[in-house]
């Protein structure tokens, strides 16, 4: 299969709070023949704070990354992080509006010379690789574990701008997780906001919002939650104890990055998937893999 090469934007949290996402993502892309060329000396896209301050400033931070990518000669940038995606996607969209690009250039002093596009790694895996192809890479189907996919708000919304999957009922994770053998539950809150970055400012906000997700997932009998967003993962996993405290619950629901589970199914070495970085211990869930199949045989 021909390798697909993209400029890669890892995002700041990839070296910190979502190090397991970055690691597992690189391992899975390698397995699927997606070649990631890191944008040289990339900078922070500004994330939510930048667009909350000013759209031109926000776009300028993204524009420097596009300018850096121009050195690679690759016009399609992919990123695992929906926040980085959204911010830089909007930067490109706004720069199409009359007069906007000029204002950005005043800040960057590096006008772009090529036409860029940015999309998520998830989109590439779903559309360019396809779930059928993913299934062919599976060595250990993850049968026996029930997962709820959680998409967050940033990746698909609004549909007419993001043009990926369905902005009311996204299925990308559902399909990929099914392809690696998980039992995927229909998760009604798959796109409801977890509070995003508001957690730092006020963790009651995130507790209140993500706690609801955890309870519904628990109620549905999920063994784990699967996400594609570092912010969602942080709010669901790192802040799970806060949410439990807020609602007086005692849920222990591991929250995986989808790439971690794909890596497991592909038989990639566990150290490359950084499962040990998860706060809620995934071991009991991982122990279930393949179990129900055995029981069925018995």
């Amino acid at each position: 299969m021909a390798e697909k090469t993209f400029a890669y934007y890892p995002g700041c949290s990839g070296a910190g709070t979502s190090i397991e996402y970055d690691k597992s993502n690189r391992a899975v892309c390698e397995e699927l023949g997606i070649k990631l060329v890191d944008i040289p000396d990339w900078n922070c896209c500004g994330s939510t704070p930048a667009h909350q301050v000013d759209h031109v400033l926000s776009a300028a931070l993204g524009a420097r990354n596009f300018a850096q990518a121009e050195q690679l000669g690759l016009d399609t940038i992919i990123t695992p992080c929906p926040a980085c995606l959204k911010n830089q996607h909007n930067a490109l969209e706004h720069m199409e509006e009359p007069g906007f690009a000029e204002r950005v250039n005043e800040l960057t002093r590096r006008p772009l010379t090529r036409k860029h596009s940015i999309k998520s790694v998830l989109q590439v895996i779903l559309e360019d690789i396809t779930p059928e192809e993913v299934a062919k890479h599976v060595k250990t189907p993850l049968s026996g574990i029930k997962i709820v996919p959680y998409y967050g708000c940033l990746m698909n919304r609004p549909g007419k701008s993001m043009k990926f999957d369905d902005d009311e009922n996204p299925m990308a994770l559902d399909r990929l997780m099914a392809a690696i053998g998980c039992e995927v539950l229909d998760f009604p809150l798959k796109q409801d906001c977890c509070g995003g970055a508001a957690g730092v400012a006020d963790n009651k906000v995130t507790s209140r919002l993500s706690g609801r997700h955890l309870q519904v997932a628990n109620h549905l009998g999920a063994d784990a939650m699967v996400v594609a967003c570092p912010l969602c993962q942080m709010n669901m996993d790192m802040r799970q104890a806060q949410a439990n405290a807020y609602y007086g619950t005692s849920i222990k629901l591991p929250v995986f990055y989808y790439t971690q589970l794909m890596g497991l199914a592909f038989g990639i070495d566990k150290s490359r998937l950084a499962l040990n970085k998860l706060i809620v211990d995934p071991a009991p869930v991982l122990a279930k893999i393949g179990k129900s199949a055995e029981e069925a045989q018995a």
Partner: protein
Amino acid sequence: MRIGVFICHCGSNIAGTVDVAQVAANAAKMPDVAFAVDTMYACSEPGQQAIEEAVKQHKLTGVVVASCSPRMHEPTFRRAVERAGLNRYMIEMANIREQVSWIGKDKEANTRKATDLVHMAVEKLRLNRVLIPKQIPVTRKVLVVGGGVAGIQAALDCAEGGMEVVMVEREPSIGGKMSKLDKTFPTIDCSSCVLGPKMVDVAQNDHIDLFTYSEVESITGYVGNFEVTIRKKAPYVDWEKCTGCGICTEKCPNKKSFDRHNEGMGTTTSINIPFPQAIPKKATINAATCRKLVDGKCGVCAKVCPSGAINYEQEDELVTVKVGAVVAATGYDFMDWTVYREYGAGRYKDVITSLQYERLLSASGPTEGHIKRPSDGKEPKNIVFIQCVGSRDVSIGRPYCSGFCCMYTAKQAILTKDHIPDSQSYVFYMDIRSPGKAYDEFTRRAQEEYGAQYLRGRVSTIVPLGDKLLVRGADTLAGQQVEIEADLVVLAVGGEAAHGAPQLAEKLRISYDSYGFFMEGHVKLKPVETNTAGVFLAGACQGLKDIPASVAQGSAAAAKALGLLSKDTLESDPQTASVDLKRCVGCGKCWNVCPFGAIREMDMRGQIKAEVLEAVCQGCGLCNATCPQGAIQLSHFTDNQVLAEVEALCRC
């Protein structure tokens, strides 16, 4: 030729921004103009008399009136010159109001433009010829397309007036949407009790020829003389023999066929009679699910039918009828609400449409009038109604208000309380639109007497939680987000043009708007006419409306059809094409392009020539623009007349 020119002031409407006296003075110098004057109101009684007198006094042979649009007053002035003894076609109008005085304030420029327009009219008039309308015989029969309540009313009124009626309905039974309703607002009277007798009247009326399970295949001809081809779809049952006894429907082994009448709230047999009061009460086989028709195995219905009516070999049949007028009453359909993915797009069983709910309420429905929710058959206690689903929503291309949802939702909230006294209804609305007689009082009763909780705001999303549906909406009056755990959600789905309406419009040669609703002749003054003579509109096909309005329009359309066909002949518009036989080379381009088949090939002493059927010709002039040698000319819009107008404007 002696031409009289009359420049109208129209009060200050024209005189305010056009120097009418100057225009009259300019007109006096134009060729053949014998008399030119400005007049206060040309269309008024004295204005018309002045024209008549001038014709006599100055021995005028043609008249130009420069005033408002000919679309407004051409018939008026035609009658005026006719009274003065001229041929009614010896008049031309210059539109110096709508197209001059009302669209610009520069008096000098307006005066110049008005003069030009008068000059054009004069030049055209110089080439006008006397035209005599022909009397054409008419077929005194009316086609009613659509057997809903509007069509039924139109058909009954036409028949009452002594006219023969042909009714075409695409479903196996007439009755339309109304036959699916349980009760009707604002009186809560039983829908089938009101409609049923009218349906029976249609069946029993000797003047009405009923074609159900049929569609209009094509229509040719023109006012007074349409020829309609009707496709009778094969029900695989010989309806001449079928007695509607229903034994076949009891014995049919396939009980899982989609139940159209019940909006899918139940299932039905492959051979079925849509509902007990169906007219005609005849069985129809659903070819998509019938085992005999699908794989040849079965044939039970044929075995049990006591009258031997089943015929698996039956084919569609084409029938041709001649009619003089057409009433389109094709009603409406509900929009496909599954575009609302935030409401589950159909994935949640207990999110249903208002019409489905109507079937649950109906004693003749699948639950025999007990409200049982589709998922588990339980009786719901908390019921949420969401209005404006598919109405007033620009984002899905439905900016219009459907008009009837506020009322039927109030009705359903009332009926819900009647059916389940310990239930609670919540109605999400944006505005309550209830401007009918006793309508607003009705919506108040739903709230005050029946305790329906009305919440002003849209619903953002429905989330299934266990066996409940979490409805998240807004109460903008309280300035709050609100949530309700509902047992059943009923969507007040908006209406849209009947599926296939644009195709029918094209067959009828009538216009339709961008949503597929048929265009009336004039929004205010011709609400049931169309711009195609002899075609009238009734009911929701023209725009969504409720039952009383549909019935009223059905009667109105009938009155129009009766009026049109009250005489044995119609006067034809003589502004038709005619062939100069000496010039025609019989190349056939004209008859190839004529949209009406109004030109035919004829043999003139061994030479092929074109011949115009005057009664069929609608006067579009396409042939005229097509004929290379200009042998076919549209009277009153001849090449020379258009060229004269062009030359009047630009010759340098």
